[in-house]
């Protein structure tokens, strides 16, 4: 099988590639970059993607797939479909499933389920048994089975002592500990603490709950020379702490979720549970700090924190509704609209944050648009505007606050593992 991707600009920051050229892909391998012959076109299925970009496939390092345990909300396959529709060729899935990803069996189960899917799924193993924060999970076994990082996501590793051990242990595999930073003694609220929470009468989480754990994690990482990754960073102080830690040479990375550089706590005023997430939506100042962090490289990557929930779970009294929103299918649009269109990031920087950096953090090879390499490519349009319609989501869940919002930047196709995904579904290539 051979195909031609025609008319796109190749944008590959690692190779400093940024020019228009057609691609010939034969049996899933990039055969020619430019200089295609007439025969190449004649013998190929030609995909006309004029004016769009071909970039290394996007990677979302923070996804909740819900399988095993809550297949009614999302399965490995539906989540992977949502990823493909959102322009991702790879995702890392968080371990707060039931059972948690805390045994080699669960890691292997996930890897097997997605083995034929063009989206690669990399499990993140639990740090502690049952994510209780008490005793280490079998991290070596998890790593050997295919886990690429460790996290008790949903909560921070409760005890500093256990976190220290986990970072030391994970160092043996050069794997990061991914931290959901929230001091458990200040957790449990339904939104960010401040004037808005006071007027809404909602129990709230102070921003220092995040800052304190970021600070602790930096200190532990510095002490054991470990590797820590801050998930969904959301406060001004936390961004500054990471910035300073990086200056000191501590092995720390961070991600930001699209909602944390797009929305503020003010959106909660109608008690719409689609704005309820953890970390909660913060203030305008925090949003600006997250954007600044993305600009200056303090924040390495963008990750959706895709958190599917059933309709009946979100359509509930605000305090009882679960945290989180689906994000795989809106990440690119939000990032282009909020970051590229507003001149905070160049397209090349965006590709670094969506494709290059997340893989580097997880020690996964970064795909290149180069002859002889396997084609792992995302095709997207940076100018096309579209309106989010949750009924068209591939994800099983529809809990998004962005329904009806007009975005710029739209994924058109992903190519990986000798398959191409577009509006028409998957085809072998």
């Amino acid at each position: 099988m051979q195909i031609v991707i025609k008319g796109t600009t190749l944008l590959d920051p690692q190779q400093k590639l940024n020019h228009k050229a057609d691609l010939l892909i034969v049996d899933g391998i990039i055969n020619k970059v430019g200089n295609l012959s007439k025969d190449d076109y004649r013998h190929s299925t030609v995909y006309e993607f004029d004016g769009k970009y071909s970039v290394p496939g996007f990677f979302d390092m923070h996804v909740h797939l819900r399988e095993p345990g809550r297949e009614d909300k999302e399965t490995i396959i539906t989540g992977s479909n949502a990823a493909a529709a959102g322009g991702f060729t790879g995702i890392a899935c968080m371990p707060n499933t039931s059972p948690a990803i805390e045994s080699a069996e669960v890691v292997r189960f996930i890897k097997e389920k997605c083995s034929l899917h063009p989206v690669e799924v990399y499990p993140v193993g639990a740090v502690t048994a049952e994510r209780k924060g008490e005793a280490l999970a079998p991290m070596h076994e998890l790593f050997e089975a295919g886990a690429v990082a460790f996290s008790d996501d949903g909560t921070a590793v409760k005890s500093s002592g256990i976190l220290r051990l986990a970072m030391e242990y994970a160092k043996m595999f050069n794997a990061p500990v991914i931290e959901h930073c929230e001091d458990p003694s200040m957790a449990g609220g339904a939104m960010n603490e401040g004037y808005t929470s006071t007027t809404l009468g909602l129990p709230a989480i102070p921003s220092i709950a995040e800052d304190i754990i970021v600070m602790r994690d930096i200190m532990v990482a510095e002490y054991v020379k470990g590797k820590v990754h801050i998930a969904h960073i959301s406060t001004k102080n936390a961004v500054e702490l990471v910035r300073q830690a990086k200056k000191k040479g501590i092995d720390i990375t961070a991600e930001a979720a699209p909602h944390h550089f797009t929305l503020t706590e003010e959106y909660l005023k109608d008690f719409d549970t689609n704005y309820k997430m953890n970390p909660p939506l913060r203030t305008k100042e925090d949003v600006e700090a997250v954007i600044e962090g993305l600009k200056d490289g303090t924040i390495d990557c963008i990750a959706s924190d895709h958190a599917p929930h059933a309709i009946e779970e979100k359509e509930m009294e605000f305090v009882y509704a679960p945290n989180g929103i689906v994000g795989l299918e809106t990440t690119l649009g939000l990032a282009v609209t909020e970051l590229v269109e507003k001149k905070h990031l160049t397209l090349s920087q965006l590709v670094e944050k969506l494709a290059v950096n997340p893989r580097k953090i997880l020690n996964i090879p970064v795909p290149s648009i180069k002859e002889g390499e396997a084609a792992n490519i995302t095709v997207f349009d940076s100018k096309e505007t579209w309106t989010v319609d949750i009924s068209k989501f591939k994800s099983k869940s529809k809990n998004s606050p962005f329904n009806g919002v007009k975005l710029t930047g739209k994924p058109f196709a992903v190519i990986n593992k000798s398959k191409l995904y577009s509006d028409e579904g998957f085809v072998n290539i």
Partner: protein
Amino acid sequence: MPFILSIVQRFKNERRNMSLTSRHLLGLQGVPKEDIQLILDTATTFREVLERPIKKVPTLQGKTIVNLFYENSTRTRISFELAQKRLSADTINFSTSTSSAKKGETFKDTVRNIEAMKVDMIVVRHESAGVPQYLTRISKANILNAGDGLHEHPTQGLLDMYSIREKTGSLEGLKVCIVGDVGHSRVALSNIFGLNSMGAKVSVCGPLTMIPVGIEKLGVKIYTDINKAIAENDVLNVLRIQLERKAGQVIPSTREYHNYYGITAERIEKNNKNILILHPGPINRGVEITSEVADGPYQVILDQVTNGVAVRMAVLYLLGTMH
């Protein structure tokens, strides 16, 4: 314009002036002064009805009202029920503890089922803030908030204002201090929003752990000295202190609270003998207020309870007769 039409127009205008701007009462935040005025004035009429030998009017005959109480409440529910009966409405009570409701049918299904039986108004109390707002999205009935989480308790705010106005004649420029656990009180927030609209000067007093973050942005002065608060205000609205001890409690003990913030006759006599004392009840005697004060000459605590029925009648009437 033909004469008859101008009469109709004038009648319509008057009607518009005599009705509320919203068909729900979710809270006092953003409720215009004219609406509050209208409710309080209407309540004055109903307050007279309560003094009659036959305390009943046919105003809401044929209307069906559900009291949806997801949280324990005796006085608020009884007050609402009585107000509904005095207006000749048909009332149904649905009371359940939130914990048992969480396990079974969803809130939305419960509401849809009740509504399918054709109800006109829902009075709701719930431990989660925002439930009344949520109800307006899933129900066609008029929604009346009887307390949601730590958010609002608008009829309490209204009856407090009514009780103050009854004594002072006006709320404009009056200094009102809310004393106690402001951060864990829906009464406080409704009082602040309502009194602010009516031109009163609102302050709060309590240990700083009881004062919620950012409250000063509502134009509220903060006192930590109860003597000063008594001396500088015309009215104290004394909040109930929760007796249950739990981790993360905002005060070391009720004893310490009483010693530094309790409203005692001695403090009143020393600082301001003209002060008016309100308390939303139920009272913890000897904690936030002494019996001497709770039963003494400065307070209007039982008046508040009577006024509560009149104010709720007013709100039910105004919402129930809207078109």
